[in-house]
Structures are given as C-alpha cells and as structure tokens.
C-alpha cells in the first residue's frame, strides 16, 4: 500500500526547525504569457519562530513571510553582490568605513499612514540592542555603534567606533528592515506576537503562531527596490504562509495542489515533485559553507599537518551527491560561490586520500592495529559535535565519519540540541563542529575567525587578524575583494576550518506560479511574483 511513500515521508516526522537556505536569482516557472495581477499564493514552510518581527527572526521559514512586510535602506543585487538603492536613494561612506550617511527617499509611508523619516530609522536602530535573545543578527550588525543622528528628515548618519564595512550590506538585510515609529515603541515580545507595521509591499493581516501568517497587498505601494522589475504595487492580492512541520505533508500538499510553493525540498522528494509538474528552484546560500569547524586549541589539532590531512581526506563530491538536494556543489572555499568576494580555492579542496595519509604520517600518526592511527600510545580520535536542526546533518556527519575512518581517524559523533549551540561554542567542548552561516557579505569571515571577536574555533593569532581588520575598513570594493581573497587563502591553507559543501536552498514551486525570486541572501522576494 505504501507505493508512493517516500522514505522522507516516514522519516521526517516532528522535525523542528531546520530553516533551509540557498538562493537563486531567476524566477520559477517559465515566463508564459503576461503577468497577471491578483490572486493568492499559498506557501508552506516547516517551522515558525513564533515571531512576526523581521528584526528578530533568523530562520528562513520565518524570514520568508516577514521579509515581505518591510523595506530596507538598501538592496543587494543577487548577481553581483552590489548594494543598490531602496529606501535610501544614495549614501556616503567615510574613508575609514566607520561613518555612513543615508539620503532617504521622500514620500514613503508605513501602512499605519505615518511617514518614513530619518527619526524613524534612528528609532529603529536604537531599539535593536534592546530586542532580546532572538535578535542576534540585528544586534551583531550594529555592534560598536557610536552615534545615530537624524541630520534632517531625509538624512541619517550612523557612526561606528571602528571601521565597519559590513554595515552597508547589513542595511539590505531583513534584520535591519525598517518598521514604523509605533512598532519601535513596543516591547520585543509585543512586536513578535502582534507583528510589526512596515512600509513593505505586503501588510500582515493575521498571524497565528505555529500555524499561519496571512499577508495582504499594500495598496499605494510605490517605493520598491531598484532591483525589482515591476513598479508600484505587488501583483499578488494575498499570500498565505502555512506551517506544515511534516516534510511528507508539505510535498504531498504541493503535488496535490493544496499549496503553491514549499521550502526545503529534500533530495528524496525531488522526483515526485518534478513528475507532478512543479518547478524546483535552487540557489546556493551565500556565507560560510557547511564546514567542520576545528577547535584549533586542541593539542592534536594544533598540528597544521593533522588539520590539512583531515581537509584532504574528505570526499566533498560524494557528500554533495548523496546527502544534499541535487545540484548542491562541493565547497571550493570557506565562502560559497554566491558570496560577494568569493575566491576559488578548489585546487586545495580536492579529494586527495593519499596526500591526507602522507600528511598524517608526517605528523607522526602511524596506523595502529585496529586501523586507527596512533602516536606515542595516543589514538587519533576526535569528536564531532552536530546539531539536530536539519535532516541533512546526520547523514552528512555520518558520511564524514566514514571517510575519515578510511584515513585512520576515529571520529565520535556527538549530537546536541540547537539550544545547546551557544554553550558548546563557548565551552570549546568539541574537536570538530558541523555548521554553516548564511550572510551575503564576506565580513562573515571576521565574525567567525578573528581572534578579537568570539573566536569560537580558537584560531591562533596571526596575519589573518590584520587582514580581517583591514577588510572591515576597506571602502574600495577591489581592495576589499583582494583582502577577502587573502583571508580565504589563509583560512583554507592553514585548515583552521575544513570546508565541506555549499548549502543550497531548494524550493518547490507549482507551475501556476511565476517569478518567485531569490534575493541576495537566497531568501524570497514576492513583489514581482504572480500566479495564473
């Protein structure tokens, strides 16, 4: 009777969060005919953060809906990574990248009728540090802010204590999407449960936590991003986001036409969806690829040769081809291809099992009787911490365990809940840690590997620090690109971290849906989307 039952259908029960990721620039569906105005799009996601405030959410499933409620000061071109006008018509950045002046567009209103002014934006940014535990992204972007000044109604200046080149890209993200003055005055929890008032192409009509979010077209909207193809209002009248935690139900609902699009398509569900006429749309997530974060303070892993040995022992193509959705690419740097400043290091990240063995031999680790390498009576045994927040994590780390075993390294897998993540990172109680980090700006490298910040991976102080500091202060795009390339070479060359595969966001989209586009962070933009 289970003829069409996919393994994922059975296996996927009760999966909690797992926001996907990925990005793509071109719309789904063939461009058949003229775009039509009106209609409803139903989008099924797997989870809900319980919060309808873009400044506080970090998981894709929540970002998809709340992103549509707000506009940002800037937008980012998914093709080039370039920052382009949205609410800000233009901006000036000081020579040391520490002061940013935005010139706001006139005539923008929030859906409560109030006007967008520099004071409102100031109130937005000043409220961010008090947003509480959820808002880790937004607070990170504004760290080190010195003064925010509304020079006049259309001019806003944000000054930082240190050079902070990433801030310009940060203003394009959902995390710094602008809400109305009234919304900034609510408590963080009120913002979550009531939802915020924005100036975006859609307004929040109803939000039922863990259940659904209903968005209505904002009438009179006329200040879309410079990247959008349609001027004025959105095509769609209504967008309904449904939370369907069970992957099999999401897939079946798309196949049977009960929903129009779904997030997080698993490899096993792809053939059935394609057979039903749905389009699969994929884009690699920008930012740090899925990697084995190395605890560089571990006595075994302090040896560069051991780290490089591990790096060469991993068959990235096999992992991409068996675990992740089709089209997933092996890592060719610590940054993914869709990240601005990405630098191709595929030569160093090929599968080289013999080299790996030679490196481990050189480091003094000789094969033991049970196949596990030994040195002075100690076994080459490492633990690998991973979190149960995505269905692909377990098969990925299990395959890595196998591959490293072939090189004579014993890996013990340690599973944690995602809520334990911050603690595991802080305590340093791991040898290797599986993870990724989505961000469409190369400054993610400084966040992760600078010794002057959290330095979760206990990277030793080196030239890398000065490179990363220089990158944060580089206003000139070419100069920044050069510095970021140097940083990637240092990180991958020294194997401070072991890049594995890119994360690819894959959406399933019904044939009646057109121009459901990925933005630069591989999340969705629905202003230009239309349905037949």
């Amino acid at each position, binding site marked *: 009777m289970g003829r069409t039952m996919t393994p994922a259908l059975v296996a996927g029960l009760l999966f909690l969060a797992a926001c996907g*990721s990925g990005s793509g620039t071109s719309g789904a569906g063939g461009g058949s005919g003229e775009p039509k105005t009106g209609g409803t799009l139903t989008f099924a996601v797997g989870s809900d953060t319980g919060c309808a405030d873009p400044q506080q959410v970090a998981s894709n499933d929540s970002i998809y809906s709340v992103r549509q409620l707000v506009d940002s000061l800037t937008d980012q071109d998914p093709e080039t990574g370039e920052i382009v006008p949205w609410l800000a018509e233009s901006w000036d950045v000081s020579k040391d990248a520490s002061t940013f002046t935005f010139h706001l567009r006139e005539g923008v209103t929030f859906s409560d009728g109030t006007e967008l002014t520099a004071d409102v934006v100031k109130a937005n940014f000043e409220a961010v540090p008090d947003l509480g535990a959820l808002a880790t992204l937004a*607070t990170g972007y504004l760290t080190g802010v010195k003064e925010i000044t509304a020079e006049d109604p259309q001019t806003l200046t944000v000054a930082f204590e240190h050079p902070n080149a990433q801030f310009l890209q940060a203003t394009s993200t959902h995390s710094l999407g602008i809400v109305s003055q009234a919304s900034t005055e609510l408590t963080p929890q009120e913002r979550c449960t009531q939802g915020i008032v924005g100036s975006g192409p859609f307004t929040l009509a109803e939000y039922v*936590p863990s259940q659904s979010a209903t968005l209505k077209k904002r009438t009179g909207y006329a200040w879309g991003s410079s990247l959008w193809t349609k001027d004025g209002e959105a095509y769609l009248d209504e967008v309904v986001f449904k939370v369907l935690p069970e992957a099999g139900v999401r897939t079946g609902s798309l196949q049977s036409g009960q929903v129009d699009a779904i997030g997080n398509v698993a490899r096993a569900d792809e053939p059935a969806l394609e057979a039903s006429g749905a389009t699969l749309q994929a884009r690699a997530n920008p930012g740090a690829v899925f990697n084995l974060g190395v605890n560089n303070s571990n006595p075994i892993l302090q040896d560069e040769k051991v780290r490089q040995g591990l790096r060469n022992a991993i068959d990235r193509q096999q992992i991409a081809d068996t675990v992740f959705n089709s089209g997933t690419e092996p890592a060719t740097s610590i940054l993914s291809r869709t990240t601005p400043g990405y630098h191709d290091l595929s030569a160093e990240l090929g599968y080289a099992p013999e080299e790996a063995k030679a490196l481990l031999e050189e480091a003094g680790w000789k094969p033991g009787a049970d196949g596990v390498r030994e040195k002075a009576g100690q076994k080459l045994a490492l633990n690998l911490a991973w979190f149960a927040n995505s269905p692909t994590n377990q098969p990925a780390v299990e395959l890595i365990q196998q591959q490293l075993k072939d090189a004579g390294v014993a890996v013990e897998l340690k599973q944690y809940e995602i809520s334990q993540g911050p603690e595991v990172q*802080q305590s340093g109680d791991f040898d290797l840690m599986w993870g*990724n980090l989505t961000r469409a700006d190369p400054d993610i490298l400084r966040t992760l590997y600078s010794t002057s910040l959290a330095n979760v991976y206990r990277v030793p102080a080196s030239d890398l620090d000065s490179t990363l500091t220089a990158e944060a202060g580089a206003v000139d795009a070419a100069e920044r690109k050069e510095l970021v390339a140097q940083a990637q070479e240092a990180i991958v060359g020294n194997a401070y971290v072991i890049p594995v595969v890119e994360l690819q966001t894959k959406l399933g989209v019904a044939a009646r849906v057109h121009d459901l586009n990925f933005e630069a962070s591989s999340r969705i933009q629905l202003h230009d989307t239309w349905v037949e």
Partner: protein
Amino acid sequence: MMRRYIAKRIAQAVGVLWAAYTLSFFILVLLPGDPVTAMAGQGMDSAPVDPARLEALRAEYGFDQPAPLQYLEYLGRALTGDLGDSVATGRPVTQLITEALPQTLLLTASALTLALLFGGALAMAATYSERRWVRQFLLSLPPLGVSVPTFWIGLMLVQFFSFRNAWFPAFGNDGVKGLVLPAVTLAVPTGAQIALVLAKSLSTTLDEPYIATAKAKGAGRVHVHLRHALRNAALPALTVAGLLVGALMANAVVIETVFSRNGLGRVTQAAVAAQDIPVVQGVVVYGALVFVVVNLLVDLVYPLLDPRIVLAPTRPQAVAA
C-alpha cells in the same frame, strides 16, 4: 460518605498536580541549555553568540537564579492561579492554553467517540461471531492498531484521502472536513485499546455461569450479549477509557503536528522545543487536571453500571457480592 470519598479524591488530585508540576520543572531545568540559549540559537546557522550578552539576557529573564529559587517563585505564583507568561512570546500561559484548548478538545472528543463506537463494535462482533476465522481475524485487528505508530497511520490516511483523492484537506483546522482525518488517526490506537480490553472481558464474562443461566432461561443470543454480558464486561473497558485520556492527549501532540492543526499539542511541542518552562508546566498541570477529573468521573460511574460496587471503602460489608 460520598462526600468524604470525593474530598479524599480531591486531596489526592492536588497531590498529583503538585507532583506533576514539580517533576516537570526539574526535568526542564536539568535539560542542557535554557530558554535564552534556545532563542539565541534559533535558525540553522551557527553564528557565534556573545557570551556577555547571553549572561545579561539570562539575568533579564531570571534564569541566573538557582533552580530551587526559580521553582519557589513559579510555585508561589501558580498557587494564586497565575501560571506566568511564556518566555518565548510573553503571553500569559493561561491564555495560550485556553485559546488552543477548544480545538484539542474537539479533536480528542471526536476521536474518543469514534474509538468507543468502533472499538466497542469490533469487540462485540468478534465475540458474537460463531465462525472461528471471522473471530480470529477480528481479534487480530486491535493488536495491530495498538502497535502501528500513530504518525504513520496519519501519513497513510493523508496519502490516500488527501493527496491521491482530494476528499479531505491535508492540514488545518477548517470545518468538519478538516477534522475527519486527524480524528480517525487518533481513534485507531484508542479504539484498538478499547476493543482489546472489551473483547477479552466479554469472552471471560460469556463463560460465567450466570450467562449459561440466562441462556437456559431462553434468552436470545443478542439479548444475552447486550443485556447481560456487555454490562459487566464494560467495566474494565471503562477503566481503560479513563486511562486512555492521557494517551489521547499525548497522541494529539503527534497528530496536530502531522496535520498542522492548531491546538494544545502544537503549543506543547513548540514550548518543549523552546524550553519554555512556564508553558510546558501550564500544559502539564492542565493535562494532570483532565486526567484526574476524568478518572474521578469514571470511578463515579462504576456504581451505576454495577450496583455491587460501592465507593466508600469504610463499609466493607457493602462490597460483599
């Protein structure tokens, strides 16, 4: 004497509620992590979180206090009827529960009705049938129903009755149509339990001498089955039905997740994932309350079914059959 009995049961119920409240608190506290780290770690990405900021947030939410102190504070408030606010959403726990409750009650009540009807009918048919193979076939169904995972039944039903044939919606709380699949799914394990117990106790009862007497007096088979046997055999099934209320609520968590139905199960699942202690405790207290009340009602119904049962244990002579 009835009053004394009920007073005693209420005292027991309060004890059960307190134990459930305390146990759930300490289990949640013993879990690694806390609501603050759960919130900070949302999403799939592994962004490092500033430790100083985490400490500040813990202090803000009161999670820097020693667990026993937190417990006393929660308990003190609970005694005044205030179950506190959700850590994750800031909304009052009582409000969260009362909002979600009607949908879950509707679901569990429908499922229990279906379970009693079909489970009862199955047991009756199995014990009534004189053909050996029919009997054996029918009796083999309940163990199957008990052992198959509920979520699997749900997924199979959705597959056939929603995806392949669009007769019912696959998700949501809309109307009677949306209720059918989840209620049937939930009714399967419950009905199977009832059928299991009732069939066993019916076949035992049917061997009793008084049944033979009734038959000898010329009572028809149907009459004997319904009038004489069922009444006595229903007692164990009723006890099980009382216990099943607990299982129904536990299964509702799974069913509501599979069918994406709004209800107490979803609230529970989200709260456990977020380690939202006040909400989990609110649900636990509510669950314990329902369980205690239902089982008290079951006990009170016994004498109506079987006059030999008297609830006051102080009069032992009354128990004599």
